[in-house]
């Protein structure tokens, strides 16, 4: 009975705790329903070789990243050095999905910033992106040997996030099977 006056204080602290937690959440990161499901299959032309095609089938048996990017996308530039580094070190094959972009602009962007991609698929009208639930570039999907999406990162990839989350998953998935 004596501690009754502490009740409002306790409620306040609880509320403050919830609000503090809410501040740390990123409302842009919407959990994707595609994680754990087979990656939507597609076969489209390649950016550098318009006569050749790229399909999800080509990556069967490999653990790989699908990185959705565009030359008009500002935050793609933020993560680009990391991708270039991954490509140079050959950590994991990174397939680019050039999203709603003009081929000439995309080529110019790669010439200027370097090309980290093993292959680049083109998605001029965003149809492939739509099937992957892409709503903000850049987005990165981690796809396993069986073609199942294991992780989706929304927004520019940071080295910290890559080392902490993606790299252990890649190592684990490459080891298994």
């Amino acid at each position: 009975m004596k501690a009754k006056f502490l009740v409002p204080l306790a409620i306040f602290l609880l509320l403050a705790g919830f609000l503090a937690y809410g501040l740390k959440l990123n409302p842009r990161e919407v959990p994707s329903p595609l994680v754990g499901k087979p990656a939507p299959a597609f076969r489209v032309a390649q950016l550098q070789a318009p006569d050749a095609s790229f399909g999800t089938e080509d990556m069967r048996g490999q653990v790989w990243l699908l990185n959705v990017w565009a030359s008009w996308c500002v935050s793609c530039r933020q993560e680009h050095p990391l991708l270039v580094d991954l490509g140079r070190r050959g950590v994991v094959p990174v397939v680019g999905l050039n999203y709603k972009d003009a081929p000439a602009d995309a080529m110019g962007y790669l010439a200027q910033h370097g090309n980290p991609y093993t292959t680049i698929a083109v998605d001029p009208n965003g149809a492939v992106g739509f099937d992957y639930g892409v709503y903000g570039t850049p987005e990165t999907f981690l796809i396993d040997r069986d073609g199942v999406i294991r992780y989706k990162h929304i927004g520019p990839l940071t080295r910290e996030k890559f080392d902490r989350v993606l790299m252990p998953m890649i190592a684990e998935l490459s080891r298994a099977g």
Partner: protein
Amino acid sequence: MPADFYLKRLLRAATLALACLGTVAHAAGEAVPVSDDPELEARVLALSHNLRCLVCQNESVAESRAPLAVDMRNQVREQLAAGRSEQEVVDFLVARFGDFVVFTPPFKATTALLWIGPGVLLVAGVAGLALRLRRRLNETPAPLDDAERARARALLAAGSSPEESRK
């Protein structure tokens, strides 16, 4: 009669001008319907009002001008035109973008708190209040002891003769 005649003409001109203004404002404020079928367009709009644009989050797909919202409206239109039902189109979008894409999320384990939370809070509040009121009703005030009784008597006596208390 000429005054009446001019007044009528003036009124008609004003009405016409207003009507013109109205159409201009209308055309500027809303997206031009893309399909020729107004019935289909109405269904597209009705459905898109319940879809969240993921780029601008608190805007619906019907209101948003983000490129993704345009894509989503086109998808909705195409699929409805192809004869799919509203529910099928919603399922199609949810499969790609998740439950977050609809403004009314489905009832399941992860959304149970969202749906029943307010009801539970209301019931708990009403029950707490009822309990409290009932307890107060049953409480009988403690009987006065002799000192309190004497004090009460003195106060009552003072109150009954105001002239005296003023001195």
